[in-house]
């Protein structure tokens, strides 16, 4: 009993560093939530500020205009997240097809080229976009030269198809990176399965359809469910750099909205309140997805 106890303590010490890490980086920041309940305004420290209870939570929805704005922000968030969810098979199919390329150097080349954009920051991506798409940029210059248009098209300034355009940029930047996971899964497929299928007379399409895809489907599902739980957080960098007065109505997602509120002119308390709500909803989403996963696959992922 005593030795067992000692072992217990020792094993606890093994895990202690990780517990500490989690506490510091995951739980300690939650302390910041108290800002949502104060009229916080720098430079006065929190102790000198007024405790206001749920005022900021009410503030979000206390008239039609604000409700409409918040709703629009949610619609944008859901639309953009939904779009990437809808096309979440894209990296998987990309990986599958990439795997079918027989010429090794070419395969490596494609993979490298598609992975690289992941390491470019969004700010640089926007600079590139501005150079290509401004009124005197490459695209407009070429179109004018060819006589297709007489007046430059303001690509960055229109809010048309902005959700789709954002998805395109995201895919351009992320597809290669996201495919890595699937490529790893594909490498893990038992060669014998494929050989057996070939012996049975399956062609390439059939091997893909009956072996490759079913084998990586579990990976896909786990990633999909995790993404669903993250439905409300589609990051802000991308939308921050691409936002302007003309497309803001449709590009402002929840994270960006919080940023614009807080960093614009110090609405820290209000944006913390929105952040709190977001976290709570995300937890609910995660649990729901877990439950669905249990129902459909027979196992949860948390």
């Amino acid at each position, binding site marked *: 009993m005593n030795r067992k106890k000692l072992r*217990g*303590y020792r094993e*606890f010490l093994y895990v*202690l560093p990780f*517990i*500490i890490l989690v*506490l*510091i980086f995951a739980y*300690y920041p939650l*302390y910041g939530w108290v800002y949502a309940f104060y*009229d*916080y*305004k*720098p*430079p*006065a*420290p*929190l*102790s*000198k*500020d*007024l405790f206001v209870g749920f005022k900021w939570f009410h*503030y979000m929805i206390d*008239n*039609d*205009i*604000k409700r409409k704005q918040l709703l629009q922000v949610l619609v944008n968030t859901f639309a953009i997240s939904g779009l990437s969810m809808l096309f979440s098979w894209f990296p998987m199919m990309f990986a599958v097809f990439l795997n079918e390329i027989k010429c090794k150097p070419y395969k490596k080349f494609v993979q490298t080229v598609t992975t690289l954009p992941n390491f470019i920051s969004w700010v640089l991506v926007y600079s590139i976009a*501005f150079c290509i798409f*401004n*009124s*005197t940029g490459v695209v407009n210059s070429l179109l004018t030269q060819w006589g297709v248009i007489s007046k*430059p098209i*303001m690509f*960055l*300034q229109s809010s048309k198809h902005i959700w789709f355009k954002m998805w395109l940029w995201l895919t351009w930047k992320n597809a290669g990176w996201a495919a890595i996971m699937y490529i790893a899964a594909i490498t893990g497929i038992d060669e014998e399965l494929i050989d057996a299928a070939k012996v049975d007379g399956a062609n390439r399409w059939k091997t893909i359809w009956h072996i490759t895809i079913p084998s990586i489907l579990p990976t896909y599902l786990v990633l999909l469910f995790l993404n669903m739980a993250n439905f409300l957080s589609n990051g802000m960098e991308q939308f921050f750099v691409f936002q*302007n*007065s*003309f497309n*803001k*109505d449709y590009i402002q997602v929840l994270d960006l909205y919080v940023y*614009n*509120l*807080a*960093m*614009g*002119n*110090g*609405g*820290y*308390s*209000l944006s913390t309140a929105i952040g709190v709500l977001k976290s709570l909803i995300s937890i609910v989403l995660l649990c729901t997805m877990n439950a669905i996963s249990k129902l459909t696959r027979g196992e949860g992922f948390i």
Partner: protein
Amino acid sequence: MKFKKIVSLFAATALLVGTLAGCGGTAPADTGSSDAGTTAQTTDSGSSDAGSDTTAAASSSGAMEIEVYDAAANFQGLQTGWFDKVIKDRFNIDLNIIAPQVAGDAIYQTRTSSGNLGDIVLLDSVDFADCVKAGLIKDITADLPNYPNLNAYAEQISTYNAGLEGNNGEIYGIPTQMMNTSPTSYSQDVVYSSPLLRWDYYTELGMPDIKDLDGLVDVLAQMQEAHPTNDAGDPCYAVSLWPDWDGNDNMLGIANVVQLTTWYGEKIKDSAILKADGKTFTPITDKNATYYKMLHFLNTLYRRGLVDPDSGTQDWNAACAKMSAGQVNLFWYSWQTGFWNSQDRLNDGTAMIFIPVDDQTYYADADAYYGSGRVFGVGSGVDDEKYKTIMEFLDWYASPEGLEFQHAGIKDFTYTVGDDGKYTAINDNALMDNLPVPEEYGGAGYSDGNNQINEWIVNAASINPNTGETYQKDYWASWKAATLTQMKKDWAAKFGAAEPAEWMKKNGKLVISPNVPVALASDTADISVIRNQCNETLCDYSWKMIFVDDDATFDAMWDEMTETLDGMGFQDLYKFDCEKWQPQIDAKNAVK
């Protein structure tokens, strides 16, 4: 067993939290526990910062590093180049500039909550008052009289500090850009905002009289028709706007539009517009006021194809490049001429100059006798040695020698001294073309090494006791003689005055608003959220309205905007702002 495990887990957690609290000097939680605690902690972190900084700096140059929290700077990092050399020779200090305009306003929140904003602090007066209240600014009452150059402005300094809430005669802040003329005089030749056009294009059109904004639009349209591209073949436009300054300088709305309102004598004070009579306010959403009028003016320009289509998406650098390349036919900030008017261009008549529009009267702030609104202070966390160095530096910064470096540049590089002791400007393109400075100043580019603090204790239009002329070259007799080009002579002959401001005064077209030292109320948490949301809404709608194709859509959007603004709480904001600015208006009218 299980229970014990949980207990030990809790024990570990408690231990951890204790450790955290013990070392958490920078955590916001610990900073404000009590006043005494804050001050003690501030001093601690301040000196330890200073210690580490000094050691870091010592390894490279042995200089003391001074952190400057600088609301005016467009540059972040260590001051380099010739200005660094100048101050290092005198004080052996390095200036480490922290610029919210570069790093984002969030840095203000993080630094204030850590209790140490900077060693030298330069803030807008409202923020400054907040920081004094929060104990972030050092009381310099006792030491100010020891510094003659600063003490020369004792009246202005004490007037400013007396306006701080709950102040009993202590001195915390030193206002910027002070002058020694009077609060109602106007010493400059040009006003901050007025229509500026290319003189050669204007004469080409036969120097037409411009009656009103429509006339201006016509003139600009004719100019663009005659000169669709610049010499390099890039397209020209009447205006090229940029969105990154929106909502600055105590004004809601597009930064480019809010300045235009001064063409009709009206001045935007946050969400309110001060009418030309200098007494009444009207909301910025008033359709009969100038914000609407000037926005409509830009929209008219757009409909005539005169607005740079990239206006809404480009940043200041892109807009600036277009100005320097001669792609923009209408300037409206007086400083914009700095990106185009060179001595050569003044000589061959292609420079930009003020052309009056008949129905306009121009608003101008009088000489900044009591300062321009920003304030210098010393951080409360500095130690004695550093404090002494900072005060010596600030005193030098306000001294004739320091001001010559700030406003006139380097002797024998940007100006020469004549036998009569008067100065003559040379290399006047030094800033524009980033000319290399003499070896003794390090040899790097002049613009790169320019003073990055970007704010001055004494105004450039003040009189330099060494010469009896202003610090800035534009008013030197030698400069006036050199710039009396054919273009200037033609301009004077046409309008019957030597300088734009003189013409305005002569014709009663100048509304001078006296300079008064009034401390303004700072936003409550509610108002600050409303202000931010209203500003964003106003700017977004305004940008869209510049790019619409007909009046009906324009008005429909304006109405929609007004409705949205009201939903955001605009009426509360307007009420707050009227009350906020009323004391200043009262003081101004009392001076008149």
